[in-house]
């Protein structure tokens, strides 16, 4: 187990460094800079140069990267150029909103997905299976912003059950969570279904049937547990999906969070803030995968003992 941990960590550090390089480059290669946002029509031309120098944007890219990385290693994510506040503060302020939405959707989409997957897998090609399949495909193929607006139309405008947007109380969480859960359901359901079907056909299940155990006993005690192993990996991947979805969902539902923060920062080319927010989101994905790897190693001896 310790070996597995050490191995994963050894990959984690270089991939994190690579991530910082990519984030930094992408932001600086895309045309546009934050100073255009700061300079107003009445300001003179010299103001622009003064501001470029003030925020170190006149330095060579390599120097800017090095400064950013160096500061980051000491825990300093820099200061937002537009908002004039430490990036870490802004992220910490938005984090609880994104975490609430993300964790809730992750948990719901996993639980519901596993449940639907088991039933579909146990009754392949039944009407139930087909209906679930249809719902799940729609959830995945419709863009989240559209799904979000559709749910608002239905539940807020027509039925008046929940508020359209904002953060007023627990009710305002219902639609964003439903949107993200629906769009995150597909992968879990499909994988669970396949996994259950595959396990049903495996030799040990045939053997169990041969020994005369009831169908329900085999399904619940053996097939389900066996089928759950790939789900752990999927949940790791799922974190990436949810995090990406949270960005659009937050904008559509006017919720504060890392997503809204990021979109605004991108539009304003607020470099330090984009870097910080992207790093958080990408970090969450890497960390999710790491956790999933470790969990899987814990459960599956084949992986734990280094066969993988």
């Amino acid at each position, binding site marked *: 187990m310790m070996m597995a941990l050490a191995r994963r960590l050894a990959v984690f550090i270089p991939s994190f460094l690579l991530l910082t390089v990519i984030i930094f480059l992408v932001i600086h290669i895309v045309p546009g800079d934050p100073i255009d946002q700061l300079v107003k029509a009445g300001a003179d031309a010299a103001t622009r140069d003064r501001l470029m120098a003030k925020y170190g944007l006149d330095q060579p890219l390599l120097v800017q990267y090095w400064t950013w990385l160096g500061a980051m290693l000491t825990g300093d994510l820099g200061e937002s150029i537009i908002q004039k506040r430490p990036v870490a503060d802004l992220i910490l302020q938005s984090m609880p909103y994104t975490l609430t939405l993300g964790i809730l959707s992750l948990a719901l989409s996993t639980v519901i997905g596993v449940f639907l997957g088991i039933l579909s897998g146990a009754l392949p090609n039944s009407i139930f299976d087909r209906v679930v399949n249809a719902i799940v495909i729609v959830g995945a193929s419709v863009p989240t912003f559209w799904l979000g607006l559709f749910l*608002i139309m239905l539940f807020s405008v027509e039925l008046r059950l929940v508020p359209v947007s904002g953060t007023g109380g627990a009710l305002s969480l219902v639609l964003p969570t439903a949107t993200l859960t629906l769009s995150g359901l597909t992968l879990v359901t499909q994988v669970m279904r396949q996994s259950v079907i595959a396990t049903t056909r495996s030799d040990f299940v045939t053997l169990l049937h041969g020994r005369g155990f009831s169908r329900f006993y085999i399904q619940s005690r053996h097939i389900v547990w066996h089928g759950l192993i790939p789900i752990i990996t999927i949940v790791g991947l799922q974190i990436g999906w949810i995090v990406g979805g949270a960005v659009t969902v937050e904008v559509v539902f*006017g919720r504060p969070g890392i997503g809204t923060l990021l979109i605004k920062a991108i539009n304003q080319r607020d470099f330090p803030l984009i870097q910080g927010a992207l790093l958080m989101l990408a970090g969450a994905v890497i960390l999710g995968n790491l956790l999933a790897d470790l969990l899987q190693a814990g459960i599956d001896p084949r992986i734990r003992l280094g066969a993988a």
Partner: protein
Amino acid sequence: MARALVVRLIILSVALFLGAQAIVPSRAETSVTIGLGLGSQGAESYNPILATRIADPIYLVYDTLVVVDKDFNYHPHLAKSWETSADGLTWTFKLRDDVKFHDGTKFDANVIKWWVPKFAGGENAYMVEAIDSVEVVDDYSFKFHMKHPDPNLLFNLSFGYMGIPSPTAYEKLGDKYGITGAVGTGPYMLKEFVPGQQVTLTKNPDFNWPDPLTKHKGPASIDQLVFRDIPDISTTFLELQTGGIDVWTATAVDFLSRLKAQPNITLIDKASTGMLYLPINVTKKPFDDIRVREAVARAINQKEIRETIFFGTGREADTFLGAALTESKVDPRYLIKYDPERAKKLLDEAGWMMGPGEVRVKDGQELRPTLWVQSDTTLRRVAEMIQAELAAVGIKAELSTFDGTALRDMFKTGKHELAVREYGWSNADVLDYFFSGKRLGFPNISMWNDSKAEALNAKAMTGAKSWDERVKSFTEYHEYILSQFVFAPIHEPAEIIAYNNSKVRLPAAIPAPMLGASTFLDMELVQ
């Protein structure tokens, strides 16, 4: 015995008091929720001295020395009166003596002496750049000694960045001023500010110094105002439908026809401060030929654009400046108007003859300029219509859409030819911003650098000693820009406010160019 009686009496009176409290209903808090337009979202701070973006509510928290009306006349507010010396180097202001900040501290001339130097080093420093020093004459009068005349001073003093904060609160909160708290003299006090989300204001019960544009006297009648940033316009529209917001300060064109059809929604126009225009890169062939530039400008059908894309709202633009600005009143012969016959004639004269495929040709080259626009539904639609209008005179523009911020950087490379742009600003110095030879590429997308224009620019920007003289110089500069066809006017969009008329009533005409006290103090609850 007597003590027991006293105790009983006390208990009885307390009980009666509590009972009375329970019986007499306390007046319910009144609250109105306002959805901010996209343009005024994203205020990062309510510290006017250092803020880089401000939103409408800043005009409710702070008062300014002077206020401006929608026709750009200046009126007294915290300053009762002012006069300027003949050489423009001394301004004397008299202040109201009955004003105090939300924290109870007194507003007087010493506040001004503290306030002006605070701008130094910040992004808004240019606003007070011309002021050399502040001299306190007595408690309620002061003088600005100027480094050079600045007729634009009144404009700056009326601007939200020059709302005056309480020195006590400002120094006490330090870095956090404007976020955790903000203290001004305005009709509403900052209760809570959640950046990027919403700002909650409660009424200032001591307010008794409204500006002359406001009809309502005394403290505000509505207890609380909540201003929300909703980043998605479809969501904002749905919030207005369901009563989540009562007022939407800038509706999107996409929803106009649907809002108009709803009986519980009232739409009112606010004086526009923006303009859509088409800059022409004069350094790119064939646009170095003024005849081709004029042909492009004359091919644009402002009427068609106004009617089809803007549903008949706003104004057909014929200059670079909004109709409210005096500098837009140019000699009629400089107005740029739709004239496709003249456009065709000019192209013929310039040697661009109609070739096969309805495209004009000269020396074997077809007239196929690029037309760049940022990814925005309305701007994109305008660009498509212009593409068709140009095609009607034989110019086949190739349309490309880019991310807005990326586009600005692309202009700096100077490779562009035609573009569709929009600006929002309410001062003639926007001419300097977009056409000065010092800012070629961006914001001077026309890449225009002309010695006569630079001389007129200098005269307008720094030569004037009074407001009238400044207006005259800017009008002259504006006329010269128009005569050179370095851009084509497209449309002056209306800024349209939508409100739920079953909840509130807004004044029929908004008296100021921005939504401040004169709008929200005169807003009434229905019933």
